[in-house]
């Protein structure tokens, strides 16, 4: 592992892994407590439409993914307010359409065979230095937004109705959360790929929730767990020549089951809790 650090790509991979884990810990905690896991899955998959469009029109796939992710998150947010009872259906539809659109657009792109796997399952070893800077800026943006509106986010997440009653603009805040989720998703596509994002957004917060007493604590512990899973997975994938994204997720999955078992033994409750 240590000799691997001589390589630029490995240093970039480690840095990207750490930074993305922090964002996923913060945003994932909010995603879990606000029960918008399905929406964030939808955003991640629909973002593929943007990647396809970017190849078709010849601009940066990350930008394409970001545009689509943010756009879709706004639509999904509006839908979940407007038609609560069928929101999950509509999110599922957008999820699938986004992916299909991406693949068709790549088909239509002349003479260009994109490595689809790297978007679906991540390619942390190919993160360029320029992307690291974008990830740093997005990370700072997310961190500041959550810090500034921390007590409002707690109120919205814990008791949305009461938050509205005391005058918190719950709707705009919800859209801010979805927008941040979209940006976190775009960053994470590089690391574990859009299919596996949902695991990195949910597993660390789910474990952390049981061992912390505040939302801030949950975010911090989630980020730390995420870093362990990501770096552990990266090391395993390097040592045994495995697909990095999938290895990271499996390490997180093993962590999930270990903590679940520990929780059951200690009587802290299992999945139903």
């Amino acid at each position, binding site marked *: 592992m240590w000799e691997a650090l001589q390589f630029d790509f490995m240093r970039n991979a480690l840095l990207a892994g750490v930074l993305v884990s922090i964002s996923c810990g913060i945003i994932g905690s909010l995603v879990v407590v606000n029960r918008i896991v399905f929406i964030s899955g939808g955003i991640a998959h629909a973002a593929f439409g943007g990647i396809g469009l970017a190849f078709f029109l010849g601009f940066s796939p990350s930008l394409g993914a970001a545009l689509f992710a943010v756009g879709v998150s706004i639509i999904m947010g509006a839908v979940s307010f407007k038609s609560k009872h069928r929101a999950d259906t509509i999110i599922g539809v957008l999820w699938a359409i986004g992916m299909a659109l991406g693949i068709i657009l790549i088909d239509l792109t002349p003479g260009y065979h994109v490595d689809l796997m790297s978007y679906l399952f991540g390619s942390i070893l190919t993160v360029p230095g320029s992307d690291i800077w974008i990830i740093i800026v997005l990370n700072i943006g997310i961190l500041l937004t959550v810090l500034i509106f921390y*007590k409002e986010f707690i109120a919205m997440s*814990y008791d949305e109705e*009461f*938050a509205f009653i005391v*005058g918190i603009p719950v709707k705009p805040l919800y859209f801010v959360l979805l927008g941040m989720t979209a940006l976190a998703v775009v960053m994470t596509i590089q690391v574990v790929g859009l299919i596996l994002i949902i695991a990195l957004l949910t597993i660390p917060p789910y474990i952390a*929730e049981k061992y*912390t007493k505040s939302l801030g604590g*949950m975010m911090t512990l989630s980020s730390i767990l995420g870093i362990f899973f990501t770096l552990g997975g990266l090391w395993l994938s390097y040592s045994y020549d495995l697909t990095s994204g999938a290895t990271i997720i499996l390490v997180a999955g093993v962590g999930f089951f270990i903590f679940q078992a520990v929780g059951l033994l200690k009587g802290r409750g299992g999945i139903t809790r």
Partner: protein
Amino acid sequence: MTVPAIDMNGVWFSYDRTPILEDVTLTLKQGDFLGIIGPNGGGKTTLLKLLLGVLKPDRGTIKILGEAPHDANHRVGYVPQNTDLNITFPISVMEVALMGRLSRSRIGKRYSRNDRTKVEESLKKTGIWNHRHSPIGRLSGGQRQRVFIARALATDPEILLLDEPTASVDPEFEMDLFDFLRELNKKVTIVAITHDVGVISRNVKSVACVNKSLIYHEEGQITAEMIDMAYQCPVDLIAHGIPHRVLPTHREK
């Protein structure tokens, strides 16, 4: 004359064309203690949500202390019926109570020392200060109720709205709570939904029965009319064997 605490005029409300409230008119003076009774699904909670501005009436007007409901939000405290929402949420008693100090004008700012003092006062008033560091999910239903009441009091409300504050608590706490509310009523207008007519007879100043329409009685008596409208009421009457007279005398022959 002072502005009425609550002034509802010809209010209609429906969910997806199912009428919930029809032509509700109610004027409540400041300092009153209104008990609201009525059958399940009769629109009691809907009425509170209209007063809070969470729901908007289809027709009619609502004024809270002379203001539109959602503009008066900093003058109204609210204790919801369901206190076991998000029970696994990592949040302490103190943090829940601090939510009462949130306001639109101070978004993005930290809680001040004054906020914390106010919350300390209200947690002490409801006798739950010793649990301030506990996760909310570890408390019993009755204890959680105290936290939610403290949260509403931390707002410094002029009107306190409570939705079935005794729904899931032991009878002993129920007595405490209404003693406490009577004391509080010296300064604050109170509106409480309750199933327990016995509680009403002992504590409230006026009573209303809601079942689509609303009947209001200024004297705090439950009239025959109310019982006809919401025949659930006398079930409670009989079951609890209340020491005080709640039925008006003219009903007896």
